[in-house]
């Protein structure tokens, strides 16, 4: 079938303003939006810039806005787009560097802020024991691929650039509920601030867009409850 991709174009060092360009592409219904972008770049217009790597939803490179919704281009199929015009734009809330490529440094800085690594004392000779029930408390958080869809889609992030955002909170959740980690209280304390976990207003956009189907909002609320339980009532 023939479809039109309407693609956001912008090179801040050359263009005065962003613009959209339509590309006509021959695509099968089972093909990915990424396949369509590749066809454009390889066959029609090599100036188009976007990130991609694994092409099957594992590496997290090709997050973008497709028909108004944050998603991975390699996980969105042509047949799921429900129209013969597909609108492709960069992730919102981030600075566009070129076309569909945004500056993710502020995102990774916030991920790093929550210390996404295990704090634990001297290890035993073999593995630390962890029951399957304890292991399950980390839930789906280990599925996070840091694609930034959730953070880009979050209405709060959009208005308040100081909000830590959903993905860093998922990363924090993973360590807070890892029975092996020894810094639970410090981690909860770090998030117990206005721009930490409490800035989340339960819009559920993060959960809706997460390509790995992580119940992001639920996890943020779980952290909130854990803070109340362990640190007592919030200062607010």
């Amino acid at each position: 079938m023939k479809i039109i991709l309407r693609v956001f174009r912008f090179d801040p060092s050359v263009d005065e303003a962003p613009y959209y360009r339509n590309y006509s592409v021959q695509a099968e219904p089972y093909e990915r939006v990424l396949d369509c972008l590749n066809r454009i770049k390889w066959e029609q217009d090599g100036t188009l810039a976007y990130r991609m790597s694994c092409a099957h939803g594992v590496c997290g490179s090709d997050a973008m806005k497709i028909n108004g919704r944050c998603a991975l281009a390699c996980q969105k199929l042509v047949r799921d787009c429900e129209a013969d015009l597909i609108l492709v734009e960069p992730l919102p809330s981030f600075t566009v560097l070129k076309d569909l490529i945004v500056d993710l440094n502020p995102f990774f800085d916030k991920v790093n802020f929550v210390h996404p690594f295990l704090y634990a004392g001297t290890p035993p000779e073999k593995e630390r024991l962890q029951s399957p029930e304890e292991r399950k408390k980390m839930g789906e958080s280990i599925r996070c691929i840091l694609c930034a869809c959730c953070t880009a889609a979050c209405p709060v992030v959009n208005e308040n650039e100081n909000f830590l955002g959903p993905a860093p909170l998922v990363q924090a959740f993973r360590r807070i509920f890892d029975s092996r980690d020894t810094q639970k209280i410090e981690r909860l304390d770090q998030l117990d601030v206005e721009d930490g976990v409490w800035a989340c207003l339960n819009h559920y956009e993060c959960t809706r867009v997460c390509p790995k189907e992580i119940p992001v909002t639920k996890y943020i609320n779980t952290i909130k409850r854990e803070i109340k339980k362990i640190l007592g009532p919030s200062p607010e």
Partner: protein
Amino acid sequence: MELQFDALVVGSGLAGLRAALEIPEGLKVGLVSKVFPTRSHSGAAQGGIGAALSNEEPDSWEWHMYDTVKGGDYLTDQDAAETLAMDAARAVYELEHMGVPFNRTAEGKIAQRAFGGHTRNYGEGPVKRSCYAADRTGRVVLDTLFGKALEKKIHIFSEVYMIDLIIEKGHAAGIVTYDLATGAVEIVRARAVLIATGGFGRVYKTNSNCFSNTGDGVYLCFRNGTPLEDMEFVQFHPTGIYPLGVLVSEAARGEGGILKNGLGYRFMPDYAPTLKDLAPRDVVSRAIDTEIRQGRGVNGRDYVHLDLTGLGADKIEEKLSDISSFARIYLGVDSATEPIPVTPTCHYMMGGIPTDLNGRVLDKHGKPIIGLYAAGEAACVSVHGANRLGTNSLLDLVVFGRRAGISIAHDEKNLHLSDISRDIVNELTSKINAIKRSKGPKPASLRARIRQIMTDCCSVFRNNDDMEKGLEQILSIKEQYRSVSIDNKADKFNTDLLDAIELESLLGLAEVILVSAIARTESRGAHYREDYPQRDDHNWLKHTMVTAGSDGLEISFKPVKITKFEPKARTF
């Protein structure tokens, strides 16, 4: 601005990260990656990491070593297999200590499952040796090591491409980088350079590899005079989702999945009576392609079925949820109730840059090149021989990545910084400008032809005539590549240019694969010659080495290290 480091690691997958973590605090370490580190392809590994922990049933490292040697069809260097198997338990415990969220047994130990070619008591039957975190083991290990790199505050240069490697008078002097964000070409000097740039499955049309796996580090070593070892051994994973090639882990069969042909018949017991669907990958891929060639593909097409319907929805959700989501998203198939169409997909390169057991790159005389190291899929230790076993790649990355890091720490007293002339920057800049000015063929069209040629003539089955024809075509594309052209003339995020540069790697490596595969007139592991269907230990129990000489490619050979296990017939 010219940067300099004590140690420079190129590639941010598990091998590169693990090596970087091992280099002591006092040394300045730089990590260069053409993608952001967590996008590295190690993250796509699904099924697990092998170690004889005996958490689920009795196991021993000697059995693991034996399986690795036999799985590699006796081309495996046995000192390397011994190192791998003996160090496996320590390596897995270390990952657990770093924070990898492994699945657990009822007693809270690391859970283990069966995997292809891993057996109890020297081949009696499958053993549960794969330590796993659902079906995203590589991803969580990558996240964990990346977290450790953040904790250690390692300098990371993301989206920076190694455009050349500098070897001066027999020792590594540094690299030249191309910054994707700005287009800047810079020299980075280093006392030690570690190549951990991964594989090059992108040389084939149907593959499980990410777009970044173009073998740049392997090719640049080769272009700078390093030999490449055992390049004819290309692994085709039996179960790529048809037609995309996206991987369905062997874990699916380890958990009880079975392969069926178009008649609904379970064919693997006919090919491997003991291990059946859990035979090593080369055996299963040949079986699938044989079924297809003999007209027993599903609906007469070029795929078979992987049937997980016997596992139940709960087990699939708990242990194979990524795989089931791939089937659902890309095919609309519910793997709990319907079979998944699969076909062999190019997955892994057993060959690569020759190293000793400690990651030191060896020249064609077997002598270390001072200051140059390699680890992971880019390297050839050779621990996988003619066919790698599943779960041994993650293990290889962390075991030999760490050893390379230790080597750098050990050697650094004797390594010094060398001057690199700015001429190289001018030369590479001219080369880039020439590509931008050229009016010749586009990278995509040339690349598509290379991948089709390699798929047609050098896949699961091979023969001299087809490969000779293929080689001729590759050489003709190499000529055309000299005038390759691109649309994008800009400096910022010019991935069009990157495509053109990576294509040189793919082309060079395709040629080496073909030359090696034509030379080896026997069948061994993943290298199956229709015109020479038998293994020939008398003539071919040796490693193939290909070096770029002044008159074209030179082939030489290196003996296989045999310690504990004498080669014998390989049946499963």
